C-alpha cells in the first residue's frame, strides 16, 4: 500500500481529524505539520509505520498524563511524533531544533506577522 493510502486509512486513535469528511486543520501550521511528516516519510523512503507508531505512542502518553477536561490537540501530538522521528533517525539534532526555534521566535519579535 502506498504511504498516502496508509495515511488515509488510519482508523484508531491515530485517525486524522475530519469534519464532514474533510481533513480538519484548525490552524495553518497543522496542515504544514501534516504535509511535512507525510512527504518526509515518502522522500526518505521510510515506512509509514515508523511515523505512525510514534504518533500512537505520543497520543497514548498524553492520555496517561492528562484528564478528560484537558484540551487535546491531535496535531500537537502529530508534531511531537514528527520531532521524535527526525531526532531518532538522526536527521537533525536537538541542539539544531532548539537553535532554529529560537531563531524563529526572535524573527517574530521583529513584527513578522504569521
Amino acid at each position, binding site marked *: 500500500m502506498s504511504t498516502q493510502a496508509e495515511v488515509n486509512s488510519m482508523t484508531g486513535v491515530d485517525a486524522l481529524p475530519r469534519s464532514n*469528511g474533510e*481533513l480538519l486543520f484548525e490552524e495553518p501550521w497543522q496542515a504544514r505539520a501534516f504535509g511535512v511528516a507525510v*512527504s518526509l516519510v515518502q522522500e526518505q523512503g521510510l515506512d509509514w509505520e515508523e511515523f505512525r507508531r510514534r504518533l500512537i505512542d505520543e497520543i497514548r502518553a498524553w492520555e496517561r498524563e492528562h484528564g478528560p477536561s484537558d484540551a487535546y490537540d491531535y496535531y500537537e501530538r502529530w508534531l511531537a511524533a514528527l520531532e521524535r522521528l527526525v531526532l531518532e533517525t538522526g536527521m*537533525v539534532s536537538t541542539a539544531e*531544533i532548539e537553535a*532554529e*526555534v529560537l531563531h524563529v*521566535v526572535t524573527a*517574530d519579535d521583529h513584527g513578522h*506577522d504569521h
Partner: protein
Amino acid sequence: MSHDHGNGVSDPEVRTRALESLLYEKGLLSPAAVDALIGVFERDLGPLNGARVVARAWVDPEYKGRLLENATAAIAELGFGGLEAQHLVAVENTPEVHNVVVCTLCSCYPWPVLGLPPRWYKDPAYRSRIVIEPRQVLSEFGLELDEDVEVCVWDSSAEIRYLVLPERPVGTEAMSEDELAQLVTRDSMIGVTNVSAAVAA
C-alpha cells in the same frame, strides 16, 4: 494571527516552522514536495477511488446494477468505505436525465470516493444557484445541455451522499477498465461536467 500558545519556544506553530526550515536547509525535504503532498490529499486521493467505481460500472453491467441499488455496499466491494453511518446513493446520467450534486446546507460530500471537496462546492453561490438556475450554473462549467434533458439536483445531507455515474463517452468501446478510470474526473462525478473521451493532456 493570535492563538492560545503565545509565541514562545513551545508554540507548535513556531516549532513546525523551525522543523520545516531545518529539513529544507539540510536538503531532506523541499517546499515543493510538501505543497504537492498537501495538494494530493486535497485534490486527487479521493476522486481516483470514485473513478474506479465508475469505470467498473461501465464495463460490468452487474456491478452497475449493484451500484445503483446499494452504492455503499458496491464501493465496499472495491475496498472503499469509511462513510460510517452515512449512506451513499449513485445516480445515473442518461441521454434523458442529467444529475448534479450539491449540499445546500454546508458541504456534505462523499469523501471516500471523491476525496476533499473543491473550493467552489463549499461556495454559497454554487450551493444556492445550482438549485435555482442549474442550467445556467452548468453552462458556466462549460456544460451545455439540450433543452429536453431533465436536470436533477440532489441535495446531500449528513445521512445521504450522492455520486453521479456519468455516461460512458462514445468511442471508448475498446478501452480497458484502467484506461476508462483515467477519463473520469471529479467534476463529472459531482455532475457539473460530462466525461470526455479525450484524456486531458
